């Protein structure tokens, strides 16, 4: 009984609510369903309706301004469609790069099965030409919109990071050294002025490569190469020290770099295991003997 009364009161109040406060129309909205059937309020608004619109339509030609507005948005639509097409073409190439990297990775994985390094690398290398070709296509597409490299960068960066990690791993297997940024650009046929390799992508790729090393060490030792942990440990220690020269932001690269110390620790553990059992000393590597002699 009481609540019914209150309801009618609020309806009534809102009806005659004239206080010009900002929340006022919202208040009215909540009661619009109740007030609609009111016949007296239906007849009068028609008068007000006509005055409103005669006032607005009399103002500065709205047709002209809305034409200008439509024209701008039509122009936007065309331009966005163009960039959408470009994006699709980039994605298509990136997908191809992705499938080539999977091929390379699959052939590189054979090193864990103690296949001879030269043979493994040979097979993986055969695909680099394909990569080079794909990157030149990518560079061509991106050159259609000068200065917008980073607008579309997100569409190929993760593929490129993988490419860097594979190239770096191959390079390390061959030479025992780290492939440099400029060397990767060279291998892929990139020119820094037109379509360069982003430094962040390079560094992230190097971090990915470091993730591969603990497994390599474990499998090499199992296969009887007791000198391997020493080499890898030295390489990773140097690499980690080099990375510590960088002032990183709190981004993905930082996260990957933070993960590198676990690779280092794992390799240290393997090195320790081999070392403490005197396996490294019995190994047929001259380097190990030399190191042993010095200590």
């Amino acid at each position: 009984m009481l609540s019914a009364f209150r309801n009618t009161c609020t309806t009534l109040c809102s009806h005659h609510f004239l206080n010009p406060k900002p929340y006022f129309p919202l208040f009215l909205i909540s009661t619009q369903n109740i007030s609609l059937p009111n016949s007296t309020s239906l007849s009068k608004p028609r008068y007000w309706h006509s005055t409103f619109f005669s006032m607005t339509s009399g103002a500065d030609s709205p047709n002209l301004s809305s034409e200008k507005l439509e024209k701008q948005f039509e122009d936007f639509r065309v331009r966005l469609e163009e960039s959408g097409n470009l994006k699709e073409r980039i994605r298509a190439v990136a997908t191809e790069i992705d499938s080539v990297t999977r091929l390379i990775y699959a052939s590189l994985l054979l090193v864990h099965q103690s296949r001879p390094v030269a043979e493994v690398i040979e097979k993986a290398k055969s695909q680099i030409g394909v990569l080079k070709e794909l990157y030149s296509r990518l560079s061509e597409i991106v050159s259609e919109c000068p200065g917008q490299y980073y607008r579309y960068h997100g569409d190929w960066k993760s593929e490129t990071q993988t490419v860097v990690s594979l190239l770096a791993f191959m390079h390390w297997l061959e030479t025992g050294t780290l492939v440099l940024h400029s060397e990767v650009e060279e291998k892929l046929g990139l020119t820094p002025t037109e379509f360069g390799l982003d430094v962040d992508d390079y560094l992230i790729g190097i971090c990915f490569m470091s993730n591969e090393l603990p497994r390599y060490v474990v499998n090499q030792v199992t296969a009887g190469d007791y000198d391997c942990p020493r080499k890898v440990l030295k390489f990773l220690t140097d690499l980690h020290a080099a990375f510590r020269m960088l002032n990183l932001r709190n981004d993905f690269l930082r996260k990957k770099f933070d993960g590198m110390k676990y690779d280092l620790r794992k390799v240290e553990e393997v090195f320790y295991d081999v070392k403490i059992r005197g396996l490294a000393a019995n190994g047929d590597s001259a380097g190990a003997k030399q190191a042993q002699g010095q200590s």
Partner: protein
Amino acid sequence: MLFSASKLSFLLMAPKPQRIRHMVGTTWQSAMKKARTMSTDDTETDSSMKDAFSKYADYLNNINDKRERVVKASRDITMNSKKVIFQVHRMSKQNKEEVLDKAVNDLKAVTDQYLSRLVKELQGTDFWKLRRAYSPGVQEYVEAATLCNFCKTGTLLTLDEINATLLPLSDPSVEPLQINILDYMLGLADLTGELMRLAIGQISEGELDFAEKICSFVREIYRNLTLIAPEMDDSSDMKQKMETMLQSVMKIENACFSVHVRGSEYIPLLGSADTSYPLLGMLDIE
């Protein structure tokens, strides 16, 4: 030497506690010696790696410093554009011209003082690389500029018009700063929120025709953006803004509807500047 010292300290820190226990004695010492001998083993490859990394370090330091400066400029632009927007909201029937003139002047000051700081930072590929750093500021600026312009002329300030005002910021030798479509559209999406506030304020003021005008303007923007929003590079942000925008449009429409339906009750407001409402007393019932 400094290099190998830092390496040693890392070796000391890295192993788990139980490993240190294992390693006490000769093995540990020889391991340390080994680390030292190894670092001098082939200094040649070592230094080439170091040289390369010092280059990367320079590159990263430069770009990070630049990004930081851009973020700061962006924040200043946001803050001062917000002030312009608030200035526009102070508009009422009596002081419209005066308030808007001040807003336009303030906006000009934002352009000259703060937006100009972005020009030399965003040359070449940095314009897109650092977009995330400056985008919020530029969006807010677009919002302020379009709001001012709408209140003055009742039309939409186009991207080309904004970009034309930015040309004098840079001398001809460098690339001029030009706002990109994406930031402009995101700014427009925010504009509807401000226009919603403005429309409701205007209704309270009794400026019903202006509110109606805002309503049709906002509808147009929403309709046009609906067509192209999904085509944007990264449309997730825009998707959310489109939803908020629809809310704003509906709020304005409902407000206009309410006035429209209960138009008769606005006589005292429309008829005179008299602000004494005989029915206000009814409120006391609640």
